[in-house]
């Protein structure tokens, strides 16, 4: 996915040096609802009978020899698990790069009989949280392109 230069600048410099006033690009709300969240391919997950889902997140031990040795010595596991509750697991399943945020909101509101606004707030916050942890990314492509791909 092509990352805008403004965003690259913000993540590399702007957020550490606020006096430079490099702000992240503003995303229009309507445009944000058309993004398609897709899962990080490095993650694996396991659905449980209780409805919850366990995400297995690989821990990056490759950066630096000292860190690698220390991790071996301390017996740090090479993956960590994150537990998603039932609603979280439902949304996670829908993060397949095909459904838009708007569709996920509508499906979640329908499945759990939530008010549209309540569902929108919950789902967008949850997706934002997953994105901050690099569990998902957002595709910005039209339905036509998605079908071709």
């Amino acid at each position, binding site marked *: 996915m092509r990352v805008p230069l403004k965003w690259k600048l913000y993540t590399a410099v702007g957020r550490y040096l606020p006096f430079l006033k490099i702000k992240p690009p503003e995303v229009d709300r309507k445009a944000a609802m058309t993004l398609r969240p897709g899962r990080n391919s490095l993650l694996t997950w396991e659905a449980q009978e209780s409805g919850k889902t366990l995400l297995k997140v690989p821990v990056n031990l490759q950066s630096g020899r000292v860190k690698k040795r220390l991790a071996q010595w301390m017996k740090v596991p090479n993956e960590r698990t994150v537990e998603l509750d039932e609603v979280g697991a439902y949304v996670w399943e829908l993060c397949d790069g095909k459904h838009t945020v708007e569709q996920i909101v509508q499906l979640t509101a329908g499945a759990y009989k939530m*008010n*549209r606004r309540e569902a929108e707030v919950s789902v967008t916050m949850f997706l934002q949280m997953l994105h901050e942890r690099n569990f998902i990314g957002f595709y910005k492509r039209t339905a036509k392109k998605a079908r071709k791909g």
Partner: protein
Amino acid sequence: MNQSTELQAGDVGEEEMPSLDTALQTVVGWQGVRCVLPPDWNVAGFSMERESGYLRIDAPSDSSLTVQIRWTDAGAPDVKTPYHVLAKRVRKLLRRPEPKQAQIDLKANLDKFLKEIAKQSKKSKEKLDAHSKPERVEREDGKRRSINFSWSGAGKGQGKIWHCQVCNRVLVAQVVGMGKDQNAIAAIASRLFQSLEDHTEDGFDLWALYDLQVGIPDGFRLESQKLLSGYLHLAFQRGAERIVVDRWGLANITLKKFTVAEWFANHAQVNLRSLQKREETLANGHNITRFSGKLSVLSRLVAIRQARFSLRGVPTRFEGGVWHCPESNKIYSVQIWRQTRAEKIWEEVLSRCVCH
């Protein structure tokens, strides 16, 4: 000071005309003001004050239409001095009528309101073009005087200002949108003004938002609220008497771990052990687990403290109940701290609580 809450300040993009073919479904009620709007319109901002406040209701995300309602108590003095507070109480104590007011100048109020809009338009370098119709008397009893108005500048708006003699409120309601939404604005405005009310006829204020609807006696004032995704909490107070209404979403998930009664025991604001428990059936067919009984001395003291040491209407009894509504997948609970003589309040509130 007005305590205000913005639920979500989201940008709204280009709008399309909202679907008006379907029946008007969203009922909104706040501080005595109530209206009916198309489906999926939701409260986006409100004030906590009853005397003067505002309410903002936004269209679904694909539209930029918004309904703004503002009200002020026409009888309230501009500057509240101890004299005004004391005089009002003495009049009430001696059962003397309120002094007659000079007739409210609606036109002046409207001009003041339009001036504010003109300021906003000036910021976005647009010239305000406002039109108003002549003042007219509405309703059979003639107790409402109103002026319709419309404006265009930074956006477009169509509204109405009125003064109601019954509740002595001056209310301004308008539908605002972008320039190209003129037809949608007109359609929503006409339906809004048909349904908009500023006071209740039966003595129960309708509190309705996010699919929750409950009628609370109009003497009770909103004390606190929590409007979270999946959890709504409204607490009302009249002297030391209290009514608390809670609603939890995702009931199917909650009820995998707890029974309804267990869930209520964890969240009730009194100890339920000493209270009488019984199962009843509501008018809508749901089974309600009801707890009632005398309040302990400690609970009464807590109630007085919560009422800022007001000894008016010290509650002696507690009524509480919880039920699961499978149709809406929600758990509802109502708790009432009441005086012994206010026997019917439980039934009255419960009969006005709409869960689906």
